[in-house]
């Protein structure tokens, strides 16, 4: 098999994107199309007294106004079905949809949405995670006990799901902490934040007979389809989801939400209907926000610097409804426990309802916050035992063959190499001015094996098509599929076009979520291509009078091994095949197995305690602090990642660089600010500051490439989320060195850093 030279990689969707010819949902127009507007509750918690749409419906140009009365009366969501399409009886956050309007144009639609009469009785707001857990706290869901929950997860009042991870026993942890030479106990508090893709979401729905086609900016077309089927009670073959180009997602466009509202409007209006979010809506209503967290950690050390035990308590904000957040507590527990050798571990972790926007899988959910707490804590441990923080990590971080925090024994992993490489690249240990320091953090993240399918075919002229259920959100993962097919078939990647993001033509894939596209769909494309390779070899064997086993596919031809002159072009073979058994391959291989942990005693296991093909990383970041203002500037960052084999170098570097910048934003400027009324106070790009070109530091990246067993094609693991994990943590550790103490609040805004600086009388900053 020839491996494509990836530095030459040009993405298949690139020409569309640089010329402006590429279409995103907002660019689509259908004949007779109406404009949709949603009417939001605008209040965090209230009992609905009346929703009256008669005035809205009477406005000329309004085609339909829908509420909960107009759609099937059922609760949905994957694990804890706790919500309706439209608010029913109670509203639980400000962005909850109470009505949807379709009208002749945007002005009339907005006028009608505003004309919906909403009478309500205010209810007490649940905003603070600890207050939500207090006995007698107001309930976000009064009927929580009646919900038809799947799986086995402990729940209680405002606790939507609960998980614990334990190594040893709870009593063992208590005893080990009591016996430890040093114990460090701290609390870390992280605010929520936003995915903030540059493309605001859009949905267009059109009915033809009893079938609906929905063009939508989703990262997960099959989830979107399933959501429509569930909420509108339709079979899957009558709902077709098509995603044109997707303008970024970062997890914010995971899950299902507005597709059914717009499909219902289109059906009621007998017209195509289009919804496009404003930037403010993209902040207030997407239903996928990065969760706020409170993390308490207590760690015991032995005098030699080894970690004896860790106890932790984590509250993860769920917001008003449970989307794909059900597994967050266990994931958060793993991140605060960390990639360390600790003999006794117990972490309790709860997903807590509040009257805020629901949380969802934003790029490595719970990980940047959990890692930030764990790694800030790790530097505090090193300081307490009088060790350099890198030496402390060398001593305690897991390596190949070690047992981790739930008893999983890891195969060949590159965490220690990541630590060595990133610190060396950053020049860790050099003398620095006293307003600068280098902070270091380790990160980890699971891979998610799962079902995935693809078809590959070569038509009569030898041109290839990859028909895949995978979703491209910008990472280049889907674009890389043609490289995999080309390498299997001895062809050029540019010989293939990709048909993707259409549930009507392609088999299932999980979507652009969990960094799983290459891991799973890559295997599917390789499997489909292998079938075609066998067919090509059979045809070539006949034509060249050789054994099929001796045929080699390379450079667009099939030749006999050892006799490159005895060859036939793949185009000729395709023409022959087109007259009989056509060249069509289908791939849906058995996913790699999740590792088992003998004797694991985690409560409320959500399947993410044992990590398949875990990814590891180390970031070392050089930061300068202006002590007078508290403004931190990231000067440079060195990143080392073990994501297994790297298949597409350019795209891989792009993932690390983008993830790092998002991480810097989370570290320093990005945080949702809520008012006393439970409503967001900074739903705009001026108030919610993304990192700009001028803020971006030089980023250097190294990949520790270990071909990993039970992983993706050629031993690849996931990558898209991992770079987002340790950046905020590394910045935190640099700031702690300059300030003299950690900033235990995230984001570490200039104001918070400045206050911490003031509280240290003698700011004798250490150098790294």
């Amino acid at each position: 098999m020839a491996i494509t030279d990836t530095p030459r990689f040009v993405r298949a969707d690139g020409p569309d994107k640089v010329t402006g010819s590429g279409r995103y949902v907002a660019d689509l127009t259908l004949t007779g199309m109406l404009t949709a507007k949603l009417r939001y509750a605008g209040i965090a918690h209230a009992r609905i007294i009346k929703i009256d749409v008669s005035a809205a419906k009477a406005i000329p140009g309004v085609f339909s106004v829908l509420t909960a009365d107009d759609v099937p009366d059922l609760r949905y969501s994957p694990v804890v079905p706790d919500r309706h399409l439209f608010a029913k009886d109670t509203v639980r956050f400000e962005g909850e949809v109470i009505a949807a309007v379709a009208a002749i144009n945007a002005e009339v639609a907005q006028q009608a949405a505003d004309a919906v009469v909403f009478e309500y009785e205010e209810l007490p707001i649940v905003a603070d995670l600890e207050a939500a857990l207090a006995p007698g706290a107001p309930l976000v869901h009064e009927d929580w006990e009646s919900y038809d929950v799947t799986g086995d997860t402990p729940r209680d009042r405002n606790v939507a799901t609960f998980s614990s991870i334990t190594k040893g026993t709870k009593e063992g942890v208590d005893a080990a902490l009591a016996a430890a030479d040093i114990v460090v106990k701290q609390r870390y508090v992280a605010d929520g934040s936003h995915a903030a893709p540059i493309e605001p979401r859009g949905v267009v729905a059109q009915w033809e007979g009893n079938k609906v086609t929905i063009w939508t900016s989703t990262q997960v077309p099959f989830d979107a389809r399933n959501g429509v089927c569930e909420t509108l009670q339709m079979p899957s073959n009558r709902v077709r989801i098509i995603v044109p180009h997707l303008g970024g997602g970062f997890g914010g466009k995971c899950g299902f939400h507005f597709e059914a509202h717009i499909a219902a409007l289109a059906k009621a209006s007998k017209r195509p209907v289009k919804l496009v979010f404003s930037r403010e809506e993209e902040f207030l209503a997407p239903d996928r926000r990065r969760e706020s967290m409170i993390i308490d950690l207590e760690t015991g050390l032995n005098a030699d610097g080894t970690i004896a035990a860790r106890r932790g308590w984590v509250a993860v904000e769920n917001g008003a409804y449970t989307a794909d957040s059900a597994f967050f507590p266990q994931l958060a527990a793993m991140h605060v426990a960390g990639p360390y050798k600790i003999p006794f571990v117990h972490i309790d972790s709860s997903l807590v309802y509040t009257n805020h926007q629901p949380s969802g899988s934003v790029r490595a959910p719970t990980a940047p916050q959990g890692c930030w707490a764990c790694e800030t804590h790790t530097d505090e441990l090193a300081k307490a035992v009088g060790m350099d923080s890198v030496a402390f990590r060398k001593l305690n971080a897991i390596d190949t063959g070690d047992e981790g925090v739930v008893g999983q024994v890891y195969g060949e992993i590159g965490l220690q190499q990541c630590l060595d490489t990133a610190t060396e690249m950053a020049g860790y240990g050099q003398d620095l001015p006293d307003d600068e320091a280098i902070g270091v953090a380790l990160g980890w993240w699971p891979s998610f094996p799962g079902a995935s399918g693809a078809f590959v075919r070569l038509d009569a002229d030898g041109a290839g098509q990859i028909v895949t259920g995978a979703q491209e959100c910008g990472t280049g993962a889907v674009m890389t599929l043609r490289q995999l097919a080309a390498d299997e078939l001895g062809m050029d990647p540019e010989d293939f076009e990709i048909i993707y993001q259409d549930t009507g033509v392609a088999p299932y894939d999980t979507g652009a979520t969990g960094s799983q596209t290459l891991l799973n769909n890559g295997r599917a494309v390789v499997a489909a291509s292998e079938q075609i390779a066998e067919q090509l070899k059979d045809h070539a064997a006949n034509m060249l009078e050789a054994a099929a086993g001796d045929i080699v596919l390379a450079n667009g031809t099939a030749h006999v091994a050892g006799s490159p002159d005895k060859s036939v072009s793949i185009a000729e073979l395709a023409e022959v095949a087109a007259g009989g058994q056509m060249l069509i391959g289908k791939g849906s291989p058995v996913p790699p197995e999740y590792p088992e942990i003998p004797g694991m005693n985690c409560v409320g296991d959500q399947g993410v305690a044992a990590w398949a093909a875990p990814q590891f990383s180390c970031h070392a970041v050089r930061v300068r602090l202006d002590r007078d203002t508290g403004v931190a500037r990231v000067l440079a960052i060195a990143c080392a990642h073990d994501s297994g084999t790297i298949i597409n170098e350019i795209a891989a570097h792009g993932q690390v660089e983008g993830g790092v910048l998002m991480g810097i934003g989370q570290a320093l400027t990005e945080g949702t600010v809520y008012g006393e009324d439970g409503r967001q106070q900074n739903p705009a790009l001026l108030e919610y500051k993304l990192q700009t070109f001028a803020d971006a530091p030089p980023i250097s990246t190294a990949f520790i490439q270990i071909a990993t067993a039970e992983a993706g094609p050629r031993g690849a693991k996931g990558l898209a989320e991992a770079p987002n994990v340790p950046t905020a943590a590394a910045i935190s550790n640099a700031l702690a060195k300059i300030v003299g103490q950690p900033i235990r609040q995230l984001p570490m805004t200039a104001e918070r850093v400045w206050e911490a600086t003031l509280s240290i009388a003698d700011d004798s900053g250490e150098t790294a």
Partner: protein
Amino acid sequence: MHHMNLDVNGMSYPITADASRNLLSVLRNEVGLTGTKEGCDDCECGACMVLLDGQPVNSCSYLAAQAEGRAVTTIEGLADGDDLHPLQAKMLELGGVQCGFCTPGMIMSAKALLDRNPEPSEEEIRIGLSGNLCRCTGYAKILAAVGEAAVEIR
């Protein structure tokens, strides 16, 4: 309703639109060129950047009527037939494109920058493009692409 002739990418478009309409909306709807994107409608993201007589403008916050009598250049007007402009070619070649939603505005800002400063330093590129938000790339590969395109254009 206001009647106007808009010169977009060298072609004259007779347009009738409400005088309050912004240039972005008229370009995307009446003119029919959707390469210019709307990311915020508030001059914060730069996705709607076009050139007016060569100057970069956030078209979301500029009235269409004000553009009358001036040359509007959008992303669709940059390539010469099938030949990509060096900025477009380098963005592709060096991985400066991921989701692509910020790309048209980013390229238009870069075009304006290189037109007024053919040899920008790295710092000048960073500052010149700081009005264009990208959430995907970390800006590193865009920086490289603009730098190499500048060399190629010279």
